[in-house]
């Protein structure tokens, strides 16, 4: 007799756990029931991301690099599962390589963008990059490579993220969440919501505890979301869905300049 396979319930990914939407709602996408996140889920995710940011920003760059590399390891292990819900196996391979590329940036970005500044006075003056805080991401297509390309530079710099997955192809985002959950990513550093963009994006863009917005995946509503983001002077980025660049890391880094006196 043929064995009946156990089907997966696709849920949200918040604070390292896989809760259903507090609203109890689901919708059908790619033939599966997926969580239809509510505004309350989004607020919970932002709150948890904010809390997780304290530890993640403090983690050593070496540690963050290893966690990102561990994500790539977990993705490699689940390559088949990811490929089943991604656009192609090639997309999965490129996504894995992208994470590895960013993992290596963790302990180099400060050396590339930081400076020691020769001021005209008896001060040691230096500038270092620091994470900006919680970054909201509208994941662009293709659903895995786009998400990974925008997420990796955000977290490697020490930010935490609240991601709204592709509305049309959300399954691979939850598959990725399962990699994240087993990759020593501290709970809350990455939070992934599935559901309807128009129900979630404006609340993400206007949330006062979100410091940056990656709108690469936004379509017609980008201008309105950017406008909402101005309420707390959010850093807004529209990048490339398939890009990798240290400038994508610095887009969500603040620069801090410290003046330290020199004297005996």
């Amino acid at each position, binding site marked *: 007799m043929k064995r009946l396979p156990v089907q997966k319930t696709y849920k949200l990914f918040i604070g390292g756990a896989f809760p259903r939407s507090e609203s109890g709602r689901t919708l059908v996408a790619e033939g599966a029931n997926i969580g239809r996140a509510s505004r309350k889920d989004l607020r919970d995710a932002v709150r948890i991301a904010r809390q997780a940011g304290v530890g993640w920003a403090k983690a050593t760059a070496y540690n963050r690099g290893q966690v990102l590399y561990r994500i790539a390891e977990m993705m490699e292990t689940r390559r088949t599962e990811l490929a089943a819900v991604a656009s192609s196996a090639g997309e999965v391979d490129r996504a894995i390589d992208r994470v590895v590329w960013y993992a290596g940036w963790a302990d180099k970005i400060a050396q*590339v*963008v930081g*400076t020691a*500044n*020769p*001021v*005209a*006075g*008896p*001060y040691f*003056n230096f*500038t270092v990059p620091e994470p*900006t805080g919680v970054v909201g991401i509208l994941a662009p297509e293709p659903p895995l490579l786009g998400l990974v390309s925008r997420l990796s530079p955000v977290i490697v710099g020490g930010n935490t993220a609240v991601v709204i997955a592709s509305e049309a192809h959300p399954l691979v985002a939850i598959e990725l969440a399962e990699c994240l959950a087993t990759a020593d990513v501290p709970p809350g550093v990455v939070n992934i919501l599935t559901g309807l963009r128009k129900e979630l994006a404006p609340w993400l863009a206007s949330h006062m505890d979100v*410091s940056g917005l990656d709108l690469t995946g936004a379509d017609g509503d*980008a*201008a*309105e979301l*950017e*406008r909402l*983001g*101005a*309420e*707390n*002077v959010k*850093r807004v980025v529209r990048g490339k869905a398939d890009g990798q660049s*240290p*400038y994508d890391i610095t887009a969500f880094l*603040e*620069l*801090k*300049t*410290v*003046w*330290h*006196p020199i004297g005996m």
Partner: protein
Amino acid sequence: MTERKQDVARRADKAPMATAWDYAPAPEARDIVRIQERYGLFIGGKFVEPLSGERYTTIDPAREEPLSEVAQANKADVNRAVKAARGAFEGAWSKLRPSERAKYLFRIARILQERSREFAVLESLNGGKPIRESRDVDVPLAAAHFFYYAGWADKLEYAFPNRRPRPIGVAGQIIPWNFPLLMLAWKIAPALAAGNTVVLKPAETTPLTALLFCDVIRQAELPPGVVNIVTGDGRTGAEIVAHPGVDKIAFTGSTEVGKAIQRTLAGTGKRLTLELGGKAANIIFDDAPLDQAVEGIINGIYFNQGHVCCAGSRLFVQESIYEATLAKLKRRMKTLRVGDPLDKNTDVGAINSKQQLEKITSLVQSGIDEGAELYQPPCTLPERGYWFVPTVFTNVAQSYRIAQEEIFGPVLSVLTFRTPDEAIEKANNTPYGLSAGVWTEKGSRILAMAQRLRAGVVWANTYNRFDPASPFGGYKESGFGREGGRHGLEAYVALDDT
């Protein structure tokens, strides 16, 4: 500057308690400056009559006397300036070799140095700031800024690894009234170094040094249209922001206006940098060198009448040294000389405008109403002009408006803390994040505090230091983008893949 300050600190320490010294007047001669009766707009390398046909009076806030009539540029005027800037960008300026561009900027730096006294006097006349500050801080720093960025003009490819930087185009730049010439330099120098052309609007109340700068441009023989200066109030600024021919907006001013600009530009793809308000914490630990710290507190909040976005307007004192600090602070405040900005002995000059004086007055009233305790040293103010006595509030709760809102005046709120954690928690408890100060003899504590303070600039055992090589700009609602240093170039380049 630092040594002199420390010297002052030492002397203050040895000085008898709060003797009011008599100083003979030491006015700086104002005849070095020739102010025209009226000014047009500087567009395409020459002064033109405003198409708006409107002018307004700019005054000396210390005497409430008119200085000149300046143009109120309207939409048509802004359009004309943007066209001139576009023409220059597509014409002579972008065809110029970067090394030649550099030499224009070096020229400007040198001419500013040569004419520094003229600029200092005019800055103090039109803005109300003490001549000591415009002479020793504003003007030298403005010249240094041009000198610094001049050298970048032909070295841009070294600033952006693996990218080919190119200019963005026409930059619209809107600057505030607290450091009129210095803010002009912060805006124009990096923009030109990167190969852009600019339309700059000085603040409504302080247009005169920007208009005098046009003569520096003439002397430097800068190609027409590379720098255009349009004067006017907020309406002129709004026209620059909304103009479709402007590729980049750089704004320094209030957070409220900054947010409005960000909203206006949403979805346009125009580049934006914002340097907005602040409510900086100046944190004094019990092991701090107290006399130096008191000088730093004074410099942090009373420098330039407190019209400083990074002013140390919230003082956090560790509880064990609260009384000693307050006593020294009050004693030092009694020696501050408030009065004629052109007098070389003046420490605190005139409030920049009537409107600003009203804002300060009403916020100070709110502090009294909410229950804070006010202290002002005995002080005789001139009869005419806009003045505000250096003020300190104690018994301040974090929720009070004077602890939350940017006053932009000589008003200090004093709060206390017990542990470093508490200091951090309170210091970061504001939507702003521009700057902060830390005073302690312990180096590791300086770095730990610097790491945890959410602010773009942290001064340790000093305050309100600026340098062209040092990036300046905010976290959170204090804006984004940096001015100064290599990072300041980023606002003015587009980065192509190599």
